[in-house]
């Protein structure tokens, strides 16, 4: 360490006092975010996963020729004929109870539509963007939200495990400013991640549609509904990241926070659904589905049995607005609790 002795000290005296602005803090946090190995690995895996999924789709979808359609029609006809034969045997059965007609006992005669038409019997069906578009966006949102949970938890958890957040306070003593910068960078990154993931889904669907797409035109309002679903999917990704950030900031440990999240989703929610089905509107994953899924999520209380003149069990409708407000409130509360504890408590 001889350089310590040899290095000039005069420059030390010349430099002015430095003052951190929120902008410079944001730039520093953004630099740290993109320098994280976890984020870099996540992005590489995401690109690899996207390529693999696209290739798998290309291999599993296909454009049928006349021969394929004829084979599918033949298999469908065979199955319908077999079902009709079984029904005929049923109609001739002597054990049909008195007072019940043979048609009621054996059901209506099966038709080709009951089996999904000849398309259901194709080895490689064409990709139907009109049918799969919104479901795909929902699936991508769910996967991205799960990754955003890990992103949000490790983002602040790494600070607490290395205690670098304490060192940062030697530079920026306003604690809420520090926490605000970290949260702002996370929200921006999660939103970008969500948008990129949904764009990747559109790109995948575009490739499939062009290469192995079917002849059916897109339904009316398709793009409007799809983009709305994708927009809500991006919101879910942001909320998931903030929830994980807030929880980890409260417990100050990534492993503990992810453990709590796992136990909650895998155990607590299932127990609640089984034992207290009427509490389901308060569950986070139900609200996540209600937020993103086109048309929201309808909870059916099967355990209550048929009620009312139509003989249907009662239902509860979770709309995107209600679910979004609820998830947003939970995220804000968790993030606020963590931030306030950080601002008020002594730090050792």
């Amino acid at each position, binding site marked *: *360490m*001889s*350089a*310590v*002795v040899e*290095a000039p*000290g*005069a*420059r*030390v*005296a*010349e*430099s*002015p*006092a*430095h*003052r*951190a*602005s929120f902008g*410079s*803090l944001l*730039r*520093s*946090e953004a*630099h*740290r975010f993109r*320098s*994280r*190995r976890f984020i870099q690995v996540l992005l590489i895996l995401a690109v690899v996963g996207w390529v693999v999924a696209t290739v798998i789709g290309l291999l599993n979808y296909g454009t049928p020729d006349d021969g394929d359609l004829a084979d599918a029609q033949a298999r469908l006809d065979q199955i319908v004929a077999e079902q009709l034969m079984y029904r005929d045997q049923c109609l001739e059965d002597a054990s049909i109870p008195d007072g019940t007609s043979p048609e009621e006992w054996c059901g209506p005669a099966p038709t080709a539509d009951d089996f999904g038409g000849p398309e259901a019997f194709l080895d490689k069906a064409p990709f139907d963007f009109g049918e799969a578009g919104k479901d795909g966006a929902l699936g991508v949102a769910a996967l991205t939200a799960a990754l955003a949970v890990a992103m949000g938890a490790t983002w602040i958890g*790494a600070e607490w495990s*290395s*205690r*670098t957040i*304490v*060192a*940062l*306070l*030697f*530079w*920026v*003593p*306003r604690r809420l400013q520090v926490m605000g910068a970290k949260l702002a960078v996370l929200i921006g990154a999660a939103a970008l991640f969500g948008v990129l993931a949904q764009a990747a889904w559109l790109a995948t669907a575009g490739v499939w549609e062009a290469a192995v797409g079917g002849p059916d035109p897109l339904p009316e309002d398709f793009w409007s509904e799809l983009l709305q679903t994708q927009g809500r999917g991006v919101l879910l990704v942001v909320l998931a990241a903030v929830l994980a950030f807030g929880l980890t900031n409260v417990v100050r440990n990534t492993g503990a926070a992810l453990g709590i999240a796992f136990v909650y989703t895998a155990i607590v929610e299932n127990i609640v659904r089984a034992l207290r089905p009427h509490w389901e509107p308060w569950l986070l994953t139900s609200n996540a589905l209600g937020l993103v899924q086109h048309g929201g999520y309808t909870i059916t209380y099967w355990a209550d049995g048929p009620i009312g003149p139509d003989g249907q069990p009662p239902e509860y409708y979770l709309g995107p607005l209600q679910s979004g407000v609820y998830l947003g409130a939970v995220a804000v509360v968790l993030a606020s609790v963590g931030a306030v504890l950080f601002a008020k408590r*002594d*730090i*050792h």
Partner: protein
Amino acid sequence: MPAVQLTAVSKSYRRRGRPPQKALDDLDLLVESGGVHGFLGPNGSGKTTTIRVLLGLVSADAGGGEIRLLDQPVPSGLPDVIGSVGALVETPLFFPGFSGRLNLQLLAEAAGVSKARVEECLELVDLTSRADDRFKGYSLGMKQRLGIAAALLKAPRLLILDEPSNGLDPAGIRDVRELIRRLGRDGHTTVLLSSHLLAEIQQVCDSVSILARGRCVASGPVDEVLASRGSGDVLVQIADPATAAGVLQGAGFSVSPADGALMVHSVATPSDITRVLAGSGLYLEELRRVTPDLESAFLAITGDQPHDGPTAAGTPA
């Protein structure tokens, strides 16, 4: 303008099921600008709590007490002066997966410090060649040097170093000592140095404060603090110590043998010894006042007893 000023500052930690623990008890501390100020105290005396209070990491008890850092009140004025304060508190805190250079660059970016300054500080602590290695691969000494580099990034007017020599090899300790000395003399930097290496404090520091049980029990220039703890003992080297001991005892001195010499206790005027012995035809080979080193003074002040007696480190009479 004092660099650090604490007046009647207290801090108690709440403990579940037990009475609060008082870490600082009406602490008064004054560190004048310029030079190197040593900060001493046994474990649990409140040194680190004091540093944490100064940096706003820990809040002092409400009511009474005033804390000023570079003439700004803490914590309200801390954002105005933090750009002039560098700190290394206990262990250096960095992201283990990032390189030393990236860790410093992130801090520099947050405060608007130039990249050139990062390279200067890496050079200053001799880490340039290892700057791109990950922090988690650094030795303890390298981590400590990176912590010092981070504290120097802002070219601080006040540099707070808590045990900066931890983990350093002897050459590293010497180099850090030289760096601290040089910073203390540059006319710009005040160094507040907390260390358990009492010899280091004695060698490097211009002034010192000693804490015990959350209070400042001694403070001032190192020489004055040591002198205030002087016992008045005088070491006498003479050819015939047995005869000299008898003469001195006869003259009313309290004398004890000390490795072939004599230790004369509680002497107000050492020249009296010269006069008495010369009057009996005995002539001195050496006469020097015994002053305690910082370790002895520290142990005496903080209430512990030194394991060995005070060493004869005074200047020859």
